[in-house]
């Protein structure tokens, strides 16, 4: 998105002590001023649009990085955006708030489409007040989506925000390594209709590509005789959540049972024999992003293939080494983070494959950690 596409209508720095009536008045006067013209950056009408309340507790350290993502989310799915900076203001400030709007030009021309933004900042002592402040400003007849980007562990105020949300989007990739099961337990307890993990959403093109490799009739039986799976990720260290979820997905879809661990990785058992699962960093690159998966199957359906994808490439490379040798580039539906978020907001059904994968992933992680 170019800078030209984003217009912030009115977002003064600082803020005033939180007062819901004053905030609503500020919003009304902002729209009144916007409608009255006088802004040279605007051409044509201004449309105020909202499909949801989007509540986003932001870690101050991540705020700058994630704000462009949130702007892109509101472009794709207009909302009243609540960005919450817990502990973002000095002690004694209590709760502060300010209003603004994030706008983009209509693709067809003819004005701006805007999402309201309410910024709520608190000092450390006032974080318990945040849920009640947000509650007083939610648009009643629109669904509330909580984007939980805050990594804090002791978070009763976030639990309270969760209680008021219709949809909770969590990104287990933003959690401390090893604490991902918290997300998956939340998903298990509340169901995937309400709770979604964005780490899973990032796996969509990987799952689609893997499924496509096994679509041909001659390769399909090899799914039943898989003997080894190697999953590689950029960087090094503990496998990141997408790796666990991909492994959990394969295990749950193919009915593998976890048996234990050896030096090379985890040992599972399929209906036809043992399956070894190795997960390792490539040692290069950053971000601990999934980069490759190699699957080998044994007799009577020998098969050996590898999928490699890097960064934001729109193509993944699929090498089939047995039977025969083929190498091809296949379209890889890489999606921007905002597109992943909006895709999950649009999902209204429970996601059984994710639920099953999360259970399997948590189980695998527990075995892995035992060593």
């Amino acid at each position: 998105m170019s800078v030209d596409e984003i217009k912030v209508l009115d977002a003064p720095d600082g803020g005033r002590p939180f007062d819901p009536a004053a905030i609503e008045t500020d919003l009304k006067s902002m729209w009144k001023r916007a409608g009255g013209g006088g802004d040279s950056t605007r051409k044509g009408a201004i449309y105020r649009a909202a499909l949801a309340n989007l509540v986003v507790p932001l870690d101050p350290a991540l705020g700058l990085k994630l704000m462009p993502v949130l702007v892109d989310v509101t472009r794709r799915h207009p909302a009243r955006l609540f960005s919450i900076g817990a502990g973002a203001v000095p002690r004694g400030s209590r709760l502060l708030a300010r209003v603004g709007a994030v706008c983009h030009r209509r693709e067809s021309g003819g004005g701006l489409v805007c999402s309201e933004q309410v910024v709520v900042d608190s000092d450390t002592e006032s974080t318990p007040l945040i849920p009640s402040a947000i509650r007083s400003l939610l648009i009643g007849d629109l669904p509330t989506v909580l984007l939980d980007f805050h990594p804090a562990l002791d978070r009763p105020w976030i639990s309270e925000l969760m209680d008021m949300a219709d949809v909770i989007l969590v990104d287990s990739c933003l959690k401390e390594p090893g604490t991902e099961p918290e997300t998956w337990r939340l998903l298990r307890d509340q169901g995937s209709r309400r709770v979604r993990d964005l780490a899973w959403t990032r796996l969509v093109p990987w799952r689609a590509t893997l499924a496509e490799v096994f679509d041909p009739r001659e390769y399909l039986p090899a799914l039943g005789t898989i003997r080894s799976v190697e999953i590689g990720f950029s960087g090094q260290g503990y496998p990141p959540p997408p790796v666990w979820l991909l492994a959990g997905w394969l295990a749950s879809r193919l009915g593998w049972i976890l048996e234990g661990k050896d030096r090379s990785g985890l040992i599972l058992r399929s209906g036809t024999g043992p399956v070894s699962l190795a997960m390792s960093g490539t040692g290069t690159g950053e971000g601990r992003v999934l980069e490759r998966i190699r699957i080998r199957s044994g007799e009577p359906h020998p098969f050996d293939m590898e999928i490699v994808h890097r960064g934001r490439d729109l193509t993944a490379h699929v090498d089939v080494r047995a039977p025969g040798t083929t190498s091809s580039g296949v379209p890889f539906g890489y999606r921007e983070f905002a597109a992943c978020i909006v895709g999950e907001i649009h999902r209204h059904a429970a996601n059984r494959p994710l639920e099953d994968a999360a259970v399997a992933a948590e189980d695998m992680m527990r075995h892995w950690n035992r060593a």
Partner: protein
Amino acid sequence: MSARGDVAVAPEPRANPLREESATLKAADPCTFIVFGATGDLTHRKLIPALFRLSKQKLLHPRTAIVGFARRELATEAFREEMRRTVEDSGAPSAEWERFRETLFYQQGVFEDHQAFRSLGRLLREVEQKRGIPGNRIFYFATPPSEYAPLVRNIGAAGLARRALREERSLPWARVIIEKPFGRDLQSARELNALVHAVFAESQIFRIDHYLGKETVQNILVFRLGNGIFEPLWNNRYVEQVQITVAESVGIESRSGYFETAGISRDIFQNHMMQLLTLTAMEPPARFEADPVRDEKAKVLRTLHPMSPEEVARDTVRGQYIAGAAGGALVPGYREEQGVDPRSRTETYMAARIHVDNWRWSGVPFFLRTGKRLAKRATEIAIVFRQPPFSLFRSAGCETLEANILRLRIQPDEGISLSFGSKSPGLALHIDPVQMDFYYLTSFGQDPPDAYERLLLDCNLGDSTLFARRDEVELAWEFVDGILNTWNQDQSPPLVTYPAGTWGPPEADELVRRFGYHWYRL
């Protein structure tokens, strides 16, 4: 589980267990779009911009190629430059264009010249080899209908398309997209179908009516069948009448040659309006897939009450615009338009009362109207509900209540509104109609995508739900032919006139007034 030696063998799966959740993530196959009429208006205005936007959204396979074919002498580089101008008009960033331009190729040729198709075949093989396309092809006829026959014959003769016998994943596929109007009457539509079927199987034929690609048209079914509260009311017990309007504010622009032979009946009524009618009146399909949906649409067309000559004279109106003021400017009448016969009897307006003879709609009139140079551009379906069975508020002085009207706005201001009566504030009891409104723009923050984007992608994916099937086209012609034959043979009803910039001839108002109704304002 069985054992083979010391290796346990699981039963071989019939379906891919990894596919379960990925069914909706189908990716477009790499293919070549071959656009006949590549230098024409449709290609410039719609096709290339739509393909470019699909490419920008990464919805086309990265190896996709587009080969233009037209009469004009043009090198591929010149073709790319010409297409760049059409795309840049719609605000294209140049980096994305640079990637897209590499997908464009051009072959000069005359549609009747079979040698040109051999040259096209050579270019296609070359492009496919260079870009790694496995031979999948989409032929797009962006030409006048008179060119369809030589195109089909020469595609067949040059062996450019493989006829599909059954679903074979491993073999390359070929599909053809044919623009409306598909034929000019029932007989010519049947002849054209027979001709196209000589080269392509029905599963390969995508008869495009861009109205079906409009988000708002697709939303008719979602609105009706995806919400629990509307479908129970969608029948003759609750619906009093239905009005479908496709109004255009423009005249015939540069299309006099085509329009003189087609008229509004063939240009809009037989296709767009019949599609809107079927989507409004159809029964819920068993599944939201191509054939179940099209089966139900065809059933509606089969239940249309065929009009006798007397009914045509009474229940249809045909008009032609004369000079008037439209949109604040004086405009000429139809007969004064460039390229139009000064004594032309071509209709530019048509209205009709139609009956859908089935259990659901028995007794409910469907009023359809369409015209050129009307007061404004608007397409809308208005479902008018019956009055409450008892006038509770008559004693309080509220003699008449406005009917509840559900308006499905197809264009512009895409959205849906429902009008209902509400007590006006004050001490007296006054009931005024008020509206609940849904606008795509203010709800979703974006305008619906262009219809051609959706339809081109669907064809690439092999999904023909939003394309007309052979029986639909022929059934629509069968019904419309009944009207046109009476118009031509009996000259009844007479061709009437209406000033440009109005809502049509007074006879159309009379058509609905006879039943105690009026056309709803747009």
